[in-house]
């Protein structure tokens, strides 16, 4: 587990105030990066906002139960990753009608809550163009969330070498798209 921020004591020996302080520290440090990660993966500010809330709620439940969260960074990103997988699983199980309705409304939802400049909007589209889902994920973890190879390997359950290969492949594809169309 190299590259993590280290063990974080949220044990039962902490009182309520100390637990809240521990939670606040993690919330302040990771709320934006997790939101950004989810936003790029789902292309929806509302889904990202709800997911951030769910992930931190799970974290608070763990902390208040006295569970020792050893590697909070990995824990949070893994929880967010699972949340995104759930989101797509639920989306797939929607009926055809609902799916069409969802697709119809999604572009409106995406652009109403964040005032994004054209550059970011284009970038979002290019990232979406990377076909392999895992390639896209590791690229975002590396360049949007600024995580190390080891961290990404821990979060995705892969090896550092595999992550390096995927990032290389994804960056090549992204550059092609960016400089060809941009």
């Amino acid at each position, binding site marked *: 587990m190299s590259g993590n921020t280290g063990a974080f004591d949220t044990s*039962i*020996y*902490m*009182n*309520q*105030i100390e637990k*809240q*302080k521990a*939670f*606040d520290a993690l*919330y302040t440090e990771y*709320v*934006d990066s997790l*939101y*950004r990660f989810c*936003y*790029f993966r789902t292309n929806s500010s509302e889904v990202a*906002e709800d997911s*951030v*809330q769910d992930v*931190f*709620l799970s974290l*608070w439940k763990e902390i208040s139960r*006295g569970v020792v969260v050893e590697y909070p960074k990995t824990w949070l990103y893994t929880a967010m990753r699972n949340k995104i997988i759930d989101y797509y699983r639920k989306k797939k199980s929607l009926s055809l009608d609902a799916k069409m309705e969802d697709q119809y409304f999604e572009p409106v939802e995406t652009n109403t809550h*964040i005032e*994004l*400049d054209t*550059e*970011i909007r284009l*970038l979002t589209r*290019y990232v979406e163009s990377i076909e392999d889902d895992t390639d896209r994920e590791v690229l975002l973890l*590396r*360049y*949007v969330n600024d995580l190390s*190879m080891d961290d990404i390997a821990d979060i995705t359950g892969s090896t550092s070498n595999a992550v*390096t290969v995927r*990032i290389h492949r994804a*960056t090549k594809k*992204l*550059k092609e798209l*960016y400089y060809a169309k941009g």
Partner: protein
Amino acid sequence: MQKDKDIQDIFKGVGKISLSPEKKDMIRKRILPQPSFWWNPLTQHSSFLALASFAIFFVGVAMYVYNPYSAQGPIVLDTATSKDSNVSLYKNTAPTQDMSEGAFIPPGLGGGASPSTSSAEPMYGIAARQSSDLAPVTNESETLVADGLLFEVRDLWDGYDTTGTITASIVVRNITNSIASLQFSNGCQSYYVLDTRDSRDETMCIEALQQIDLLPNEEHTWEVAIDLREQPVSYGTHQLTVGIEVYYEYTKDITFE
């Protein structure tokens, strides 16, 4: 592996994607338990409530200080409590004048004992609570809630067995001449903290508004029992806090032999 500079340039604007401070605050508030209405009315409700709270507080203080019905004699402020606590206790002292006529001269004007610095038992107090990050309430809003209620901690002494049971009684008495009420937002009304062991972390509390009504001069007692058989403590001095949620808290160093 070094980061690709071209790709870094492509991603340079992603920092703009973030939650607004308001939304961050909103999410945090949804997750963390919030103090109830009774904890902090001044910060959670309208200015009307704030004004009403102050008005009731001042009336309450006036009624408490000039209470001719109290058989305990004049009440003086005792600022000496446990060393780590900012709890203020109001301690009853022996009557210094004939109260039968209803006359009462405040201590500062020669009618009572000077504020004591002794913390000898028994301990009496009203509306005392340690300040915390959870509910940064002022003394004013605290005394408002428990005005006219006299608290007493009984049965605490030194020389406990490290694997025995500590018991304490927290007694509240209505010293006004009207009905007084205590309200609780859940079933866990009393609690203890022995060093870092907090009974509130070990107990599931049922969320339900509960009220205890006390007639004039009526008492209510909470028994606090700490069983040390499963988790014995070391010999020496330990800090024990017992309290009634929202209303009262008392901290004392106790020794184990």
